[in-house]
């Protein structure tokens, strides 16, 4: 049974089409991540699922119920916002309990649910504090707690980590993944960060310009991107794209190769000049300038001693070549 289904959903603001027909089925208990560049419509889509925005056409189904005309509070969802959106006049307990109070759930039950959520998120000591007395990470945990206590059919996360600093972001990411395993709930998560998408998702939905470019598991998207956009968006540093004669040799318009699939070897077919080297310790990114093709990144494991200005030869690993036709669509791999 699909726990969330979008059917031909579109959204226009005036003459601008923001969502141009999206179909999607989300399975029970799945962790789905919407990812895409800013302005691709991922947040709008989430707001349509939440009921904060009305779709222009199409249907939204949550569980087995069409919710097109159901107000947000009655959709059986809970949402976590980028800015946390905690009620400034209520303490942590009040923030977590407000929705339950609105639903008319008995006090003892509310207390029990808050207690349970506070245990999971280590918020016990903070229950009587106001949001202004909490740190960013704590606020985010309260926002998540506020979602958990509702026991929703569907969790919606709108870029929940964007306001946290880098170290906290990694920790919270792990927390969210654990939480999803613990609750087993269906979860839709919006982010512009492909690393978050790769690390968290069961399936990633790549959006661009109001359309779904590809849906699939992180490794599916990584290994078999359906088109140039997905190929360029997933993975860091970006996949290298090479056109012209080299691509034509392989019968394609564009040839893609990920940085880690490029070796620097004396017998490589492509010649290039090193223009910049980044040492990360575990890896070295070597950026080379290739005539006609511009900057190409190669990722060498460990330390690689190359100097800017040095001439090197690049050798692609043939089984990791990606081929794209003139419309940017992926061609079948050469056997």
């Amino acid at each position, binding site marked *: 049974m699909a726990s969330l289904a979008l059917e031909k959903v579109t959204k226009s603001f005036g003459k601008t089409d923001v969502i141009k027909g999206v179909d999607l089925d989300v399975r029970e208990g799945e962790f789905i991540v919407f990812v895409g560049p800013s302005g691709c419509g991922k947040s709008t889509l989430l707001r349509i699922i939440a009921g904060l925005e009305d779709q222009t056409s199409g249907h939204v189904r949550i569980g087995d119920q069409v919710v097109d005309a159901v107000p*947000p509070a009655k959709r059986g969802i809970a949402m976590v916002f980028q800015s946390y959106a905690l009620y400034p006049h209520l303490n942590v307990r009040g923030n977590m309990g407000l929705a339950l109070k609105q639903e008319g759930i008995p006090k003892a039950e509310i207390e029990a649910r808050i207690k349970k959520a506070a245990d999971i998120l280590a918020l016990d000591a903070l229950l009587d504090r106001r949001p202004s007395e909490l740190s960013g990470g704590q606020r985010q945990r309260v926002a998540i707690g506020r979602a958990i206590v509702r026991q929703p059919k569907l969790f919606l996360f709108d870029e929940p980590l964007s306001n946290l600093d880098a170290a906290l972001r990694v920790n919270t990411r792990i927390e969210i993944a654990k939480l999803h395993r613990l609750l087993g709930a269906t979860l839709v998560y919006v982010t512009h960060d492909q690393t978050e998408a790769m690390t968290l998702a069961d399936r990633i939905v790549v959006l661009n310009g109001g359309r779904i470019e590809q849906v699939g598991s992180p490794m599916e998207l990584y290994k078999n991107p359906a088109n140039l956009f997905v190929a360029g968006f997933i993975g860091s540093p970006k996949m290298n794209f090479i056109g012209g004669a080299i691509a034509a040799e392989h019968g394609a318009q564009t040839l893609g190769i990920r940085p880690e699939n490029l070796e620097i070897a004396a017998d490589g077919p492509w010649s290039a000049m090193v223009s910049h080297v980044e040492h990360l310790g575990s890896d070295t990114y070597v950026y080379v300038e290739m005539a006609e093709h511009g900057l190409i990144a190669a990722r060498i494991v460990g330390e690689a001693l190359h100097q800017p200005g040095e001439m090197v030869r690049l050798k692609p690993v043939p089984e990791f070549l990606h081929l794209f036709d003139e419309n940017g669509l992926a061609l079948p791999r050469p056997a």
Partner: protein
Amino acid sequence: MRPARSSPARTGLVHLALIVWTIVALSPVILILMNSFKSRAGIFREPLMPPTGSTFSMIGYQTVLGEGHFIRYFGNSLIVTLVSIFFVLLFGAMAAFALSEYRFRLNTALGLFLALGIMIPIRLGTIGILQMMAASGLVDTHLALILVYTAQGIPLAVFILAEFMQQVSADLKNAARIDGLSEYTIFFRLVLPLVRPAMATVAVFTMIPIWNDLWFPLILAPGESTRTVTLGAQLFLGQFVTNWNAVLSALSLAILPVLILYFIFSRQLIRGITAGAVK
């Protein structure tokens, strides 16, 4: 070593300008206060001198308070001002919320229409207003003044509050909607407390012209029972003889309530005026 970003000369000039401005702004008030404590002879002989042993006199205050009606005039002014502020804030905030929160046709046009009231003085409509009040039997009632002042205050209130309400996080309102709060609860419990500084700003800017107004009380409510302080003080201004002691004392007393209201709002006000200027 001198701090890099201040020089005594520049700081001195800034302070000089501020001091001059303060003197210019305060001197009429001080003049009134000083002279209200002097005898009639003292006022005329040395108008710029503070009260001395020989010129000190409380005769003005005795006249004003002895007159008996003045307490009532104060009451009238307070009722009219406070009720008007209340309605201006309530309706202004509601309109501002609608304009800033909901997308609907003619939203911008409606906002501009409401802002028009800032530029067009309500006094231009005095004759029409008087006819309306006369026709509906509201002349010489508090309600007549309250209605006019509410209308007069709303445009600025909408203008300022809409600006502030746009800054209230959309996520917060959406979180409340998902939690099942009604739009009214969102407005009263979430948004209003967050724009409190702006409300105080609007309250002060609304209050002062209402309290000081002479025009509408004179035209719409000159009767004894609804007379306001500013109008009441005019009683002592005769065509031939003016009781200056009483006039000055009445004006001095009239400063007090606004001053008290101002202090109540001022803590919020400073935050309101400077909000946005510094983050």
